[in-house]
């Protein structure tokens, strides 16, 4: 790593400050919450951040219609209720929603496929913001395109609101597998790899050298149990997002704390077993192979 000369005057919104923020979340669980009360339950359970939204993905799926940014009152209520970082979602390409979220002082913006996309060609220019962005990806090319647009954190998409971890596993394995493949490329092959991945050559080269993304990689979309969270960690996720899995379950406080424990001790089956006892009902869940293509959120984003 090179040592650059320090900024003479304080500088906000630098790549290091944005990416560094995500580094602080590593090993942690980020939980979807829809009320200040839920946010407090999440914080008490040991969440490293909460995602403030009006409806959890399972309800967005059930209700249908257009899903948009949440009401600023609701986001501010949650910001006021907890001291941990608060994230909120904008629609893909809806940079005005993102501007609003920045003005509300959220700590991270999730440009999310869970909401109805506002632009079917372009994502938001995330370099234009002081607030850092997290974006979803199903494969390495998609992750690198988001990073090129300024994303400071990536989450594998999975299939939100299903309570089914199968897509989360698929996407994380895909990303990790493609990174491993790049590691094996010689310099001549990286140009063609960049073309294939539809990603900037410089980023492809950086990933080949680092053996990882240049930003933190979390997993999302379908984590419902402590074992699910530990599975994603063992597969290489640096932390997990849990959406509907907690507050759509029988005993949210207990399940939330259990998922936090299993995320830290992801490689210790005894602790995961202990954490998995008597959690009450898990969310019911949806079998992803019966989900029509048009209802797959992971397909959103380009």
């Amino acid at each position, binding site marked *: 790593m090179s040592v650059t000369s320090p900024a003479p005057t304080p500088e906000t919104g630098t790549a290091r400050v944005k990416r560094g923020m995500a580094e602080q979340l590593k090993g942690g669980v980020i939980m979807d919450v829809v009320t200040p009360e839920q946010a407090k339950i999440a914080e008490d359970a040991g*969440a490293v951040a909460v995602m403030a939204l009006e409806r959890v993905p399972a309800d967005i799926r059930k209700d249908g219609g257009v899903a948009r940014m949440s009401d600023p009152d609701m986001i501010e209520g949650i910001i006021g209720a907890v001291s941990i970082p608060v994230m909120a979602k904008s629609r893909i390409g809806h940079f005005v929603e993102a501007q609003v979220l920045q003005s509300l002082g959220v700590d991270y913006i999730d440009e999310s496929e869970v909401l109805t996309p506002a632009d079917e060609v372009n994502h938001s220019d995330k370099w234009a913001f002081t607030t850092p962005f997290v974006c979803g990806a199903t494969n390495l090319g998609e992750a690198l395109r988001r990073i090129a647009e300024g994303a400071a954190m990536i989450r594998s998409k999975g299939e939100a609101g299903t309570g089914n971890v199968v897509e989360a596993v698929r996407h994380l394995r895909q990303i990790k597998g493609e990174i491993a493949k790049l590691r094996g490329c010689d310099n001549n092959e990286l140009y063609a790899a960049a073309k294939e991945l539809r990603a900037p050559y410089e980023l492809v080269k950086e990933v080949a050298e680092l053996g990882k993304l240049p930003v933190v990689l979390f997993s999302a979309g379908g984590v419902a149990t402590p074992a699910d969270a530990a599975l994603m960690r063992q597969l290489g996720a640096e932390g997990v997002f849990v959406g509907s899995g907690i507050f759509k379950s029988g005993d949210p406080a207990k399940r939330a704390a259990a998922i936090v424990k299993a995320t830290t001790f992801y490689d210790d089956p005894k602790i995961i077993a202990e954490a998995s006892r008597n959690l009450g009902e898990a969310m019911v869940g949806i079998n992803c192979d019966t989900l029509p293509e048009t209802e797959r959120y992971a397909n959103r984003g380009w």
Partner: protein
Amino acid sequence: MNDTPVIGVLALQGDVREHLTALAVADAVARPVRRPEELTEVDGLVIPGGESTTISKLAVLFGVMEPLRARVRDGLPVYGTCAGMIMLADKILDPRSGQETVGGIDMIVRRNAFGRQNESFEAAVEVEGVAGAPVEGVFIRAPWVESVGAGVEVLAEHGGHIVAVRQGNALATSFHPELTGDHRVHALFVDMVRAERAAESL
């Protein structure tokens, strides 16, 4: 006695990997510490950046808090960055309910004192005991030190606020040297660990 000190990084949550790398560059053997028994095997400990409420909860839950307090009282060299600084404070100004600290430095810390993420910043910081150019201070939702007791050395200030302190074998910074690739602050800590080992072996 092997000359290379073994330094743990409390690995319950946070930017553990960056600290492990920085310590290795600063010529220590670095290893993650999550369990009480792992704590007994290290000559020094770094408490990383992360979420202080999460780290505190997990430390209590998994039985690390009490043994860590005991070792710090006995003079174990410790270094905390950001959330780690909060963990080393004898007192938090505005703790969440039930938020415990390890303590070790006679100071009162204000969490997220520099603001939310939009106010997070980088700035050059002159740190007492770190020779050469100023350190690149990366402040992320950073705390500052409201006040210190008589035994505490103030090592750095930014904007009129205390951002680096030392008391005996305990060191703390509001900012994250582990994110910069400049490992002079870690080298300072490794020196503290070496000095403690030398003193013990006398």
